[in-house]
């Protein structure tokens, strides 16, 4: 039966966007109040303003972007003049405080206008229809013959698999707020997750898109109306960070379904994230506590955390990401020699490759949890690890009274981070491509065990020969172990992993190498397994790190 997709005019993002002005006012007031609470006591507002001014002027000078407002320089010049004229020793304390508060308000207001996203349901409906058409177009082009756009042979939904407790999630989105936390491998993750979620009837999600992405007019036009708020990683001053956190917390409190990439940036080495950036995740815990404070007697709306592990056969940016990683970890032992791939090219190449071959993407959604990592049922009730009902609001209480405690909540956030990492590993859908890359690299590592990783990566291609029988034997061991892990709920296996090992090898080699100019893994004419690009092989190998599989090689 065809799934009836929810109407974007009913989305909470639509409601929030309609009241955009009011939301912004709320965020401004709340940020200022929070900032004053933390800094006014020690008379630190002036210091913070001065620090922010310094950092912002440095940003304008050293790292200007196209997307930056034209009056950036003037604005910060104005802040500088005002601040200089408000020396408490000359103007008096009261005048100085007034000016400081006005400047704080000006800065926060500027940031809020920059950050706040927009969601246009009409545009969303348009995108919902137009996106599959664009995808189909790309698909047909990649088949080499352009047929009518209304008669696609393969649809995106044949390539993009969303797995998990979807029925439960559809129910929970009606009674609470969904917070998606996916792993991050590619710049295309947000588009994939965004499209995938709507495809399975979970509606739209707001997410923080890097401000740099808005440098591209195409992206800006396309995405600006689909709900992302803007994140500027250049701005590390405390006023900006406080504004961003308040924005995130306030929109969540208003019921905005949200998507966070807790890894912060894309995985540099192809592995599943182990350490998460907890800043914005912390706003989820805070928002849940405020919900409980404002709505006692079980009337509080709950936030449901949904971990998602994305699986790709190939990541277009793999090569440049890995270069960056090796450069960072290896320092002078590693020399970079490739240019990163550009945004638009990334987009088109990716889709041609995706449709051109029998590739696939999986968004593996985990069981929805409350902010303490307890699994929730369809009614949104939490059950602890012993399957007993649990009232999580009590985690915010001390001796029977609910009261905020930032330090306590930062610990809860760290604990939630640990739970998410565990779930990322459990929900990871292992592909043939990950498996062949893992086995091949491990065999080479074993063969050259005296070499460190950097010397290994420098070995000439002719040395990288693995006899097929040896490779097959290790593949058998690893697939057996993968099945054991799958049976123990430690990971998941893609459907194609149930094939014979020979077929898995063929499938894996074909898929992992389909896009890259140099093949990370291939079979030579005389029957050896080899690699044209070891660092890519290492990147795909890393996907299976952390399961203790090396000992089965």
């Amino acid at each position, binding site marked *: 039966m065809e799934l009836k997709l929810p109407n974007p005019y009913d989305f909470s993002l639509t409601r929030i966007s309609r009241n955009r002005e009011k939301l912004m006012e709320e965020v401004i007031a709340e940020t200022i109040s929070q900032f004053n609470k933390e800094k006014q006591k020690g008379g630190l507002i002036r210091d913070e303003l001065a620090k922010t001014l310094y950092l912002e002027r440095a940003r304008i000078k050293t790292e200007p972007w196209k997307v930056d407002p034209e009056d950036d320089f003037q604005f910060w010049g104005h802040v500088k003049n005002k601040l200089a004229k408000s020396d408490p020793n000359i103007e008096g304390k009261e005048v100085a405080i007034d000016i400081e508060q006005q400047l704080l308000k000006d800065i926060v207001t500027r940031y809020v206008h920059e950050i706040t996203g927009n969601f246009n349901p009409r545009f969303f409906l348009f995108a919902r229809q137009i996106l599959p058409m664009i995808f189909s177009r790309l698909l047909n082009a990649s088949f080499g013959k352009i047929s009518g756009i209304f008669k696609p042979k393969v649809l995106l939904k044949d390539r993009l698999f969303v797995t998990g407790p979807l029925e439960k999630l559809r129910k929970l989105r009606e009674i609470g707020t969904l917070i998606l936390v996916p792993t991050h491998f590619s710049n295309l993750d947000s588009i994939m997750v965004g499209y995938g979620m709507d495809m399975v009837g979970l509606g739209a999600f707001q997410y923080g898109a890097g401000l740099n992405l808005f440098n591209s007019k195409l992206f800006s036009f396309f995405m600006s109306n689909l709900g992302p708020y803007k994140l500027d990683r250049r701005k590390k001053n405390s006023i900006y960070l406080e504004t961003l956190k308040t924005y995130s917390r306030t929109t969540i409190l208003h019921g905005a379904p949200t998507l966070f990439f807790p890894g912060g940036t894309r995985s540099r080495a192809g592995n599943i994230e182990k350490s998460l950036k907890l800043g914005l995740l912390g706003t989820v815990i805070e928002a849940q506590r405020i919900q409980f404070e404002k709505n006692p007697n079980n009337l509080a709306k709950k936030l449901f955390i949904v971990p998602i592990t994305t699986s790709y056969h190939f990541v277009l940016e793999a090569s440049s990401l890995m270069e960056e990683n090796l450069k960072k970890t290896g320092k002078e032992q590693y020399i970079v020699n490739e240019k990163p791939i550009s945004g638009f090219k990334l987009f088109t190449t990716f889709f041609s490759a995706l449709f051109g071959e029998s590739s696939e993407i999986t968004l593996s959604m985990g069981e929805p949890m409350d902010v*303490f990592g307890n699994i929730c049922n369809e009614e949104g009730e939490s059950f602890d690890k012993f399957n007993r009902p649990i009232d999580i609001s*009590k*985690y915010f209480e001390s*001796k029977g009274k609910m009261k905020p*405690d930032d330090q*306590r909540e930062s610990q809860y956030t760290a604990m939630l981070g640990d739970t998410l990492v565990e779930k990322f590993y459990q929900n990871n859908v292992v592909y043939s491509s990950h498996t062949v890359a893992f086995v091949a690299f491990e065999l080479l590592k074993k063969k050259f065990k005296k070499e460190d990783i950097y010397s290994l990566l420098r070995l000439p291609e002719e040395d990288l020969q693995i006899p097929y029988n040896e490779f097959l034997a290790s593949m058998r061991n690893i697939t057996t172990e993968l099945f054991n892990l799958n049976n123990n709920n430690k990971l998941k296996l893609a459907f194609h992993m149930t094939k014979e090992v020979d077929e898995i090898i063929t499938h894996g080699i074909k898929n992992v190498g389909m896009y890259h100019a140099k093949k990370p893994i291939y079979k030579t004419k005389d029957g050896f397994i080899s690699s044209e690009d070891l660092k890519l092989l290492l990147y795909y190998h890393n996907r299976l790190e952390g399961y203790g599989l090396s000992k089965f090689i």
Partner: protein
Amino acid sequence: MDSQNSSKKPPIGVIGAGSFGTAIANLLAENGEVILFSRRKEVVDRILKEKRNVGQIMHPHVHPTDDIEELCKKCFLIFPSIPSDSFRQVMKVASPYLRPDHILIHCTKGFDIKLEEGVSLIDKKLKLKPADIRTMSQVILEETIVKRVGCLSGPNLSKEIADGQPAATVIGSHFDEVIREGQQAIRSKRFQAYGSHDMISVELGGVLKNSMAVAAGMVGGMGYGQNSMSFLISRGLSEIVRLGKALGAQPEAFLGLAGIGDLIATCTSPLSRNYTVGYRLAKGENLQQIMESSTEIAEGIRTVNICKKLSETLDIRLPIIEITYEILYNEMPIAEGLKFLMEYRKGHDIDFMG
């Protein structure tokens, strides 16, 4: 005014009425009401009747019970003080009654071992990995839904606390709130409580020193003086730090009360149970005789075994622990053990802080 406030305060719970649990209960009772749990009804009845337990006079604010549900219901702050080998079991019993708003600060200086069925810790061939061991805070997190967890550890010999002598301890927790609540509950004119966010290091300091205390007892029992004892304590510290580091502790943490502080107390006091085991061995008794005649478990015997096995897996040389193990479990004569130690190749004095 104070007494009015204290009557409104919820009582503090102590789980385990051994000598340390009893001493802690009496200390806490100086600041408010305390509920003390013992699994054994006869212990509860005896405390009620005689107002004494394990040689200590009970403070009138201490109310004994064998009903764990009642304790959990009435108390927000609970101090479990149970031997490490039954800690998990007791937490399982308490688990259904523990709530998300509970704070647990344990006082147990020992490891929990997770072994496969049929495998015994005594097995000499057993290979023990760091993943097989748990500290008590980890057991609490595994067996209950409580998240606000801490530990109390330091040079705290039960008898001296019971005698009202001044002393200090460390409350380790990731949560400021746990440290604060613990300090408020236990601080008094004669008992100081410091805080630390490095909970794992505080726990490890308390556990690992037990093995040194057994060795120190042997030195004492042999009649050796302070030169020998200082030799043992400082080289013992080096072994503790090296093993602690491998298990995730920060070396600096061992310089505090819960590290060197506890080590000095336990290695120099005949009141320490672990010291007594070593002392009696040096005086000619064997391990079985000592264990049979002791009313309470000396954690050190078990800790030596665990540390020795861990050091093998982790490939860390710990000569004092190895020799103590040989003496305890393989009947090596103490004199021979000492000879081995004196002939052990020389190393640098401070080689463990980096």
